[in-house]
């Protein structure tokens, strides 16, 4: 399992591994990401609930902090380097790493090999090459690694799905999340217009270019509202925090909810 799938993942066209299926009991190491840990613990809890419900165990390497995306993407590459090393140290013995964030996983796949290369650290390079094929974004772990679409969820709400740029154009998760959502019982799933258009978050872009970011956000919010959904979901809480921030400012009553929280909901549970 250490080397399988590496080629496909790195090139972006994932070679399907043999689905592991329900109940085979993987030991999943959760990389929660710094902002989910701090701002969206409910997402993490939902990931744990879904994975355990499917018969896998979840461990949380306690030394984890941040993948380095914010620093790397803003131009602070030197500052991101120690975070790569920390991540590798924390997760190198993992059977599978799951993270509920498309942009953080994209950060690793797109940049970690280059970072290790630039550090001229052969050992680190080898460890990164070995570790990356085991790192999965939460929805792709379900659809590609486990080969699942129906995870037994129940969510009787009208929902629209926001495809994050990194999920679409970097991880190429395609319609995987939509398949998971379509299998949710009770859900009224409605597609948003201009699905592939960025919401305007872009990390520090939202601050540095607040005017343009706001204009992009305004278009995305209009798309969300046109669906008449009560919740907007996605695989990345950073986009959802951005969209949700405007939805709240305008008192639209539409809430952001991470896909893990929808998939964790069950009949008889709290919705």
């Amino acid at each position, binding site marked *: 399992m250490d080397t399988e799938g590496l080629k496909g993942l790195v090139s972006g066209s994932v070679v399907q591994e043999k689905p592991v299926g329900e109940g085979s009991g993987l030991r999943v190491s959760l990389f929660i990401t710094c902002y989910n840990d701090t701002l969206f613990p409910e997402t993490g809890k939902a990931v744990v609930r879904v994975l355990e419900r499917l018969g896998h165990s979840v461990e949380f390497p306690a030394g984890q902090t941040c993948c380095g995306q914010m620093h790397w993407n803003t131009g602070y590459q030197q500052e991101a380097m120690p975070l790569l090393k920390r991540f590798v140290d924390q997760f190198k013995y993992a059977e599978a790493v799951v993270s509920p964030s498309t942009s953080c996983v994209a950060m690793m796949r797109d940049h970690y090999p280059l970072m290790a290369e630039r550090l001229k650290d052969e050992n680190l390079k080898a460890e990164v090459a070995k570790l990356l094929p085991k790192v999965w974004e939460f929805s792709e772990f379900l659809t590609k690694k486990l080969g699942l679409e129906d995870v037994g969820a129940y969510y009787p709400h009208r929902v629209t799905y926001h495809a994050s740029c990194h999920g679409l154009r970097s991880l190429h998760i395609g319609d995987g999340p939509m398949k998971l959502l379509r299998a949710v019982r009770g859900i009224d799933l409605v597609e948003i217009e201009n699905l592939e258009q960025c919401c305007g978050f872009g990390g520090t872009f939202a601050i540095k270019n607040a005017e*343009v970011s706001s204009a992009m956000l305004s278009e995305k919010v209009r798309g969300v509202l046109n669906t008449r959904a009560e919740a907007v979901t996605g695989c990345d809480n950073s986009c959802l925090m951005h969209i949700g921030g405007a939805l709240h400012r305008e008192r639209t009553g539409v809430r952001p909810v991470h896909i893990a929280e929808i998939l964790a909901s069950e009949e008889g549970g709290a919705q």
Partner: protein
Amino acid sequence: MSGALDPTTAPKFQVAAKALMGDSQLRKNVRHATKVIQTKRAKVVAEMPDWQDLREAGMQMRRHTMRHLDFYLEQFERNCTAAGGHVHWAKDAEDARRIVVDLVKASGTDGKAPTEVIKIKSMTTEEIQLNKALEAAGVHAYETDLAELIIQLGHDQPSHIVVPALHKNRSQIREIFRREMNLPDLGGTPQDLADAARRFLREKFLRVKTAVSGANFLVAETGSVCIVESEGNGRMCLTLPETLISVAGIDKVIPRYQDLEVVLQLLPRSATGERMNPYNSLWTGVDKAPTGGDGPRNFHVVLMDNARTEILADEEARQTLNCIRCGACQNACPVYQQTGGHAYGSVYAGPIGAILTPQLMEMHHAQSLPYASSLCGACYEVCPVKINIPEVLIHLRNKVVKQQSSGFHILANPEVMALKAVAQVFRSESVFRVSQKLGRLAELPLSRKDAQGVGWIDWMPGMLGGWTQVRDLRVMPKQTFREWFEQRSKGAAGRRAEDAAGKGSDNGR
């Protein structure tokens, strides 16, 4: 926009963008035009079963060319010269301007220096602000491309590398023509406007004996120059005058004639959503027949560096030079769609401008441009030669940060200080934990509870205020995920012992 697009004097992107975004007409025009071109492009790209292979071939060809640029440039020079052309080398913009002005002045057929030239749309001549230099030398340049004519008559600046007047709509163009061509009764249909432009230009084509062009491609193998266009004005400029001067960046060279097969499929489909350009001109030197054949008698190519070799020397950014100037990244860019091109303060706008312009300025100007992107990747996805623009943007951001972090600069920059401090926090999980707690305390005074008792922040100070101008921010929950997980693990320790003893599990319902 009347001032020249000059990166050395342009305001920061965010400042220019803010001003331009107040123009609702401009924003409607840009949104409409980019949408139309994107839709056309998507259609003609989707019909190509081998589009991804073509992109790959284009990328490989361009990469190979840049690796052997010295070889192909000299090969081009040899073959162009053998065919009767004259090749000139320009180190920078000033050099190029001087060479062109001198060539124009020397091009008089009756012993007098010409006072007029006709021009084909050329972003390279816009880059070096050639028209201004010609004007200063007493030579008026007539732009003959319809969009460039609109820009010139409107005392405006190009906002797109393929569709320079994309930010103007038909009624605005009619007003410009009515005023500048003195046509008070001009109608408003596309036909009316095209007729007016044709009448205005035809007389120049027949009168002016010197033409200035850019180049889409220089073919090293044959010494040929290639220009593609839609209106036929180019063909006029290339064939009617006695003297033709083509200005090209050294990045425009391609190795073989056969390579046109790839780029002449990639370019029109990406640029204008056409299967082929209406006019594809390709010429090699001059017709040396003593009786006088077709085309210009004197043909000059000015090969201009202007910082391109600097870009070539940067391993991570050199893919910038692979660009074939199709503008697809501009149409696809959600930032460009909001601001239009003038916000970039350069003739090269949009994602390609955001990486090209600062590098053409050798990173001395336009440092705000690498940040004019949400890194959404739409540009990379449509690029016909697979330039990984987000990757280059990040690389250039790093160069900017290095400038800002050096010496005293760091003290004047709260962002640099803040991000460096946060990086320290992430280097230790215990410091991170403490910071999470401190963060909850720090945001307390800003938090206001909503009807459900959830705290929200609707105002933040300083730079962070950019966020709260249109967005609220939920306060941090009382418990972090890691605290919850640890608490749960402690509680589950006993249960795990039972599991080990084979007494069942609370998992896997």
